């Protein structure tokens, strides 16, 4: 009986693996595609903020002002500018506020550096905490009391009483 259970379980495992694999294969057609040729204006608009719709990019915003901006992008492209030049034009005219991706320069140094700095500080902090906790604590208790026990209110009460008594 035991052997047959194991056999069944083994079969189940492989069936599961195949199912997972099938799911992955189903995802394939999604990637087989080459990206379709893109409308340049639209993709530049995606990189700009809309002056009238708060928190949305220019391409997604349906207002009149945005239509004018998109027309401006189009005419600049028709004049032979490339997309970076168009973006530069908008940045020069309205400031870096118009860009979806904040520039990486002095004005945004804090923005880009702070998360990295914070992560480093946090990790150093964690390392220090680990070092401290590995020195401190009451090793005697640690070995005396099984770890999961302290989850129980009764046992933690008991623990306290023991501590008081000793």
């Amino acid at each position, binding site marked *: 009986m035991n052997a047959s*259970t194991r056999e069944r379980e083994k079969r189940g*495992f492989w069936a599961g693996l195949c199912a997972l694999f099938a799911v992955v294969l189903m995802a394939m*057609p999604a*990637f087989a595609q080459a990206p379709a040729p893109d409308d340049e204006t639209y993709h530049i608009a995606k990189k700009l*903020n809309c002056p009238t719709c708060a928190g*949305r990019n220019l*391409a997604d915003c349906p207002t009149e002002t945005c239509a004018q901006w998109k027309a401006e992008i189009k005419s600049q492209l028709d004049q032979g500018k490339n997309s970076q030049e168009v973006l530069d034009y908008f940045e020069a005219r309205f400031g870096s506020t118009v860009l979806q991706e904040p520039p990486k320069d002095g004005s945004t140094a804090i923005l880009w550096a702070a998360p*990295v700095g914070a992560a480093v500080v946090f990790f150093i902090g964690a390392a220090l905490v680990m070092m401290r906790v590995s020195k401190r604590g009451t090793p005697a208790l640690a070995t005396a009391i099984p770890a999961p026990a302290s989850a129980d209110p*009764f046992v933690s009460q008991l623990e306290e009483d023991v501590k008081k008594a000793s």
Partner: protein
Amino acid sequence: MFTDLGHLSVILALLACLYAAVVSPLGAVRNDDRLVQSGRVAAFMTLPLVLIGCLGLWYALITHDFGVQYVADVSSIATPFFFRVTALWGSQNGSILFWCLIMAGFVAAAMVKDWKTDRPLLPYVTMTMALVLGFFIFIQLALTNAFVRYDFPPADGRGLNPLLRHPGMIIHPPMLYAGYTGLLVPFAFCVASLITRRTDNLWLISSRRWTLVGWAFLGAGLLLGGRWAHDVLGWGGYWGWDPSENKPFITWLIATAFVHSAMIQEKRGMFKNWNVFLMMLTFASMFFGTAFIRSGLLTSVHAFAASDIGPWFMGAMLVILIACAVLWLTRLDTLHSENKLESAFSREGIFLIQNVLFLSTAFTVFIGTMFPILSEAIAGEKITVGPPFYDQVAGPQMIALVLIMGVAPLLAWHKASGRAVWRQMIGSLIFAVVVMGALFVGGVTQLIPLLGFGLCAYTLAQTVMEFVRGARARMKGMGENPFVATLRLAQKNQRRYGGYIIHIGIVLMAVGAIGKGFYGTDVIRNVPLNESFNVAGYEFVYRGIRPVQCEFDDCQTMQGMLLMKDAATGNVIEGLFPHRDFYPIQQHTATIPFISGTFNNEIYVLLAGWENNGATASFQVYVNPLINWIWVGGVIVILGFFIAFWPMPDKAPAAVRANARSMAGAPAK
């Protein structure tokens, strides 16, 4: 009349809060249980009192009482009954009242809970919750009163904000509110434990379920918000790193860190300081987020209008921070670790690293959200931080968290053995390599998404193996069949296996995010009548536009008609009808998508505009590969929460626990 009664009732609720906040600690200091009980009842009573207030406003909304300013602002005669009900949280003033209702619900639930084991904490839990709830009720009454009347009532109202007329909006705000306000309960327990110097595991055990409830509501609220954005905002996506999404997300990240690190304290009695800190940070971020979204300091898609509640919230925030800092610093001596960390290569160690990553991710989102304000204040130029920043900085950290999810369960408490970990890892690693190979052959050749999918495959396999290993042990030990063994396994240790199911859901969401993020494309095509364009293997034939009956009475709809065909075979798949709804009163245009394609490859079409009565029209077509896995993963996360949370006590241990409880309750302080 009934509405004014509601107004009066909310005033009484404020008085009840003040009473509870004064009487409860007084009772504790004087050791007078009658006072403590009186405070408890007063705090409980805020629920019926605020509920009467809400009923009053609902009554005004349903009966079209446009004499009430709020009613005229958010509804009109044309507003259907259903949206007159949900209009209670359709705008700032009403939604703060509704917020108070949900918070009062949590306060009342905490008051009626069984206080046998944690009795000493009761007076201060009552006090903390009554103070916070009282603050919100005060804001409602003094600054954003929803009951104010016009001297001369208008004949009709403005109608509900068109963006809010979506089923997702019925449950999305209540979910977020429940998530935010639910976190008040564990915070109150934390504060009470510090005040009473009972900084053992008492508060953690009492509050961990509450934290989980708040966490789950917040997560579900974010998920529904994503679905709403996908269906209504015409973004093509699900997440825009918008300030009003970011703020709850920050709180959710910190709460997630807490849910994990609480386990270390429960199991090993370590990191007590850290848990107190995380709980305080969770609450502070919730309060701060509310303040910012509510005060209109941040512009966002659906932040509430600018109002003067900002200074009040900032003042309260300052008080909370100072109170927390003082409380924490004066109790530092009681927060010693009971145990020694034996090795950094252990469950405890990796939990700490995971906590740090959650916090640094939260900080990344925080600085990105705050930077426009900071840059304006410091440099005088408001710099916008769009999605590219978050994708580049928060993205890698979240990927690292997926990796930790696949490694942490392998590490034992105390000290892990490298060889044992490796032995358990190798199978899943091979699986991941095979998946990556298949994907590479299938056309996923970019390095980062390939690694990302490989990581997801590894973590998924590893998490599934946790079930397989546990079930196998039971099959061997108890002779159960695989199905029963898995079920029993989860039943015996709901938190652990519920947690693993949540992990599986998160991995699937990551798969969706990588698919959409790296392989999503979108194009805009201008097309003359009866001509076609090709995107992603489909041919779209433009068949004109037509005005149709709008879903609501106060709008006009123009519908675009596209025929979608298989580009290779020319077979017609279906007709697509994206439309634009124009709301003249609110001067708002809604771009409503039509969604088609396959499960793994969503086609999302928008009508972007037309010329000459539809002689030409432009369509935006988004190809969103794997995006549906985000919703599937989200539902699995919620399912996992229910498995972890649902009370299914094992008969025998319950009796033992009850016994233990009566004994633990007996000893004097």
